[in-house]
Structure formats: C-alpha cells, structure tokens
C-alpha cells in the first residue's frame, strides 16, 4: 500500500449513507430469514413426511437449493424471472427471496435436526393423551426442539447477514453498495470497506449476544402451554 494516503474523514462524512445501507442490510437479512424459516419448516416437515414422494421431493429441493451459489440464485431470480416469465421483482425483493431460499435450505436441516433430536416417546405420550398429530407437534415436540433450533438458526442468520453483502450486485443499496459508490468517488476503498467490516463484526457480535440471552431464557423457563 505504498503511497496510499489514508483518509478516514470520508468514513465519518458518509456515516449517514452507511447507516442507510446498514438498515437496508438488516431489513433484507431479516425478511430473508423470515422466508428461510417458512421454507425451512415446510421442507423439514416434507423430509419427515410419511409419504415417500413428498419426502423425496423435499430432499431434492433442499439439496438443490443448497448447491446453488447465492450469487447465481440472485441473478436467476432478478434477471431470469424477468426475462423468462416477465415477473419483475425489485432488487430488494429478489435479494430477500434469494436469501430466503439459501437460508431455507439450511434451516430445513436445522429444523429437522432439532425435531429428530427429541425422543420419539415425547410424541407418543402426546398422542396417547389424545392430542392430534399437529398438536403433539406444536405443543410438545417443537417447544423442546426450539432449544436446539435457536442457536443453530442464529448461525444461519449470521450466514445470511454476510450473504446479504452480495445483494449489492443487483443494485440493492446496502452497506457494500454505499461503500463502493462512495469509494469510487473519493478513492478510499480501504477505509470504506473497513468501516463496513467493523459494522459487520459489531452486528454479528450483537446477534450472537442476543442469541445467548435468548438461549438462556429458553433454558431457564419454558413455553407456557
């Protein structure tokens, strides 16, 4: 980096824009995670289905979704849908859906792992008192599985948060986009991306901290049914 003149003032001057970017990053990762939870739970149930073809289909979808790079997924959803099917999504929508699909593939495994870790006897005891299959799941199995699912779900979320940096390629004005845009004009990429890095590290640490508190709470008391 010979001859490179650091100019940290640019960072300070662009804090409002960076903050805007941060909010977009948070928003898109949260919407993406919400979708990931819905997809994940759906396909986890599919993989545990009694119907062979539902099981195979769900397993196939999960494996497929896991093997597509987020980058490619993003282009398919944003440009592909538009070109092939005239479905025009905003960059934000496309980004959130892509994150939802990638995250969903991981969440499916997290849900399945958490649910399968619960002793079968729990479900049987719930059925034996006359609960329907779905109530046995929502009132007895899931509340126990949640304790396993939450910490792993947080890992998936942190992954999505990092994945969210990719959405700038289709023009979502997230932090990376802001950093790129500003450093192009001010020739300070090192400073701008470092600022983004620091923001991400603090974000990830805060999420981990929140998760720790949540986990402690889950372990202390429990669902009041």
């Amino acid at each position, binding site marked *: 980096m010979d001859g490179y003149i650091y100019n940290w003032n640019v960072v300070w001057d662009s804090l409002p824009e960076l903050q805007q970017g941060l909010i977009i990053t948070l928003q898109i990762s949260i919407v993406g995670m919400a979708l990931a939870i819905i997809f994940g739970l759906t396909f986890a149930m599919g993989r545990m289905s009694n*119907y062979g073809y539902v099981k195979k289909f769900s397993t196939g979808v999960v494996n497929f979704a896991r093997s597509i790079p987020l980058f490619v997924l993003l282009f398919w959803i944003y440009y592909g849908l538009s070109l092939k099917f005239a479905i025009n999504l905003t960059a934000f929508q496309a980004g959130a859906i892509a994150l939802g699909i990638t995250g969903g593939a991981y969440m499916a495994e997290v849900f399945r792992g958490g649910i399968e870790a619960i*002793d079968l*006897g*729990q479900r*049987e*005891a*719930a*059925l*034996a*008192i*006359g*609960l*329907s*299959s779905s*109530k046995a799941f929502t*009132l*007895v199995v899931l*509340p*126990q599985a949640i304790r396993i699912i939450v910490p792993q779900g947080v890992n998936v979320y942190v992954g999505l948060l990092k994945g969210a940096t990719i959405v700038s390629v289709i023009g979502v004005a997230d932090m990376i986009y802001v950093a790129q845009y500003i450093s192009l004009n001010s020739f300070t990429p090192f400073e701008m991306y470092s600022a983004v890095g620091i923001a991400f590290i603090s974000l990830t640490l805060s999420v981990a901290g929140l998760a720790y508190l949540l986990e402690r709470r889950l372990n202390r008391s*429990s*669902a*009041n*049914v």
Partner: protein
Amino acid sequence: MSETLLKINNVTKVFGTHVVLKDIDLDIVKGEVVCIIGPSGSGKSTLLRCINFIAPPDQGEIIFEGKTWKRFHSRFNIFANRKYEGELPRLRSEIGMVFQHFNVFPHMTAVENVMLGLTKVRKEGRAKAREIAEQSLIQVGLGDKLNQYPEKLSGGQKQRVAIARALALNPKVMLFDEVTSSLDPELVSGILDEIRRLAKDGMTMVIVTHEMNFAFQVANRIVFMDEGRIVTMGTPDEIRNTTDPRARAFLSSILG
C-alpha cells in the same frame, strides 16, 4: 354377564419384513386386570401400542366399547388419511397409557403436564383443568410437587406424574408398559401400590410387567407371549402351574 370393553381381533403387526405380532386375539372385560408377560422382544409393547394405534395394526382390528377401529392408509388420498387421523384422538383419549421411560414433558411443570390433555383434548377451561390436575397429582402423592419441572423430580415421581396425566382424563382402560423397569429398586413398590389402588377401584388395566409376584397378586388373567404370539393364558394359578414348556422356562428364568 360381564361386558367386553376391549376386543383385540386377529391383530398382526409387521415392521419391515419382521412379523412382530401374529394373529393376536384377546378380549378384555370391564374391570379386568390382565397382565402380559414374556421374554424381551416378544411383542408386548407393540401389542399395547396397537391397542391405542400409536403403532397401528397392519391387519385385524380393535373393538373398543363396540366401535371398530381399523388401520387406514391411502398412498395418495391425503384427505382421507387426515380424516382417519382425525378420528384416532377420540379412541386414544379414552385409553390411558404409561410408559417405561415416563415420557413426561420436560418443558412443563408437573401440573402443566397433567393439564395439557384436559385443556387441549377435553377442552376444559384453565381453572377447572388446574383443579382436576392438582387433584390427580394429590392422589398419586405429589401434592407438594405441583409446580416442579420434571428435571427436579426422581424417576418415581416422574412416573407418578405420568400416571396422574393419564388418570386425569378419566380413561376407561389403562395400559402400563413395564412402568417400573427403569426405576431404582427402592421406588418400584410405590408405583406398584398405585396400580394396586387402581385395581381396587375397579379400573380395567392391561399391564406388561416383569414383576411376577405383583402380576400373580393383581391379575385376573395372565397372558404369556413369545415371538409375537399369545402362547398361553389363564388365571394366576393356571399360569403358575402351566404345562407349556416355553412358559415354564420363562417363569423359572425370572422367578429363579
């Protein structure tokens, strides 16, 4: 004269290619206590689980209070399956079941464990449910543990919670599956006493057990199973003096 409450008709159960129950027939009369004995792996647990369709029989049927229950499964008609699944809770809520490993719900206190069926199956209001649940726990001697989580309870206390959870729903028949087998020896007799108390109150019960002295004492009828079949059955005296070689071998191995 005595009324058949539960009829197990020609029940067969297969896991993969393994025939675990073969053509089981057994009628249980109201108020009767039937003990099922037999070597490990002979299908005793599976038979109990067929009765309340936790493990639905592959062939044959269960007739409970005159209503016939048969397995149903369509490969493609999900709606028909759902309709059938939706009927089963009615059968199950009339049949209490207690398991070897207690299976109490660890995320609920003792009283919440018992309340769950009352609120969600019997549709009682919370106040009424709590009252019934507390009463039920007091009856099994847990009046001072109402708000404890299972992790704070001993094995014997957990099993009492499980018994109270079943009894609170006022079942017509109770199924016990080796409910003392995972208890420390000093806790066994307390649980057996609870079952004796139920017998005295006239509860219909099907009890899988290895506690032979208890079985001889409490049973009206003892059923000996081996390799998925009922080999012989009779009154405690008849079983004590059985001439069936397999039953004799089993009894001498367990009684010493």
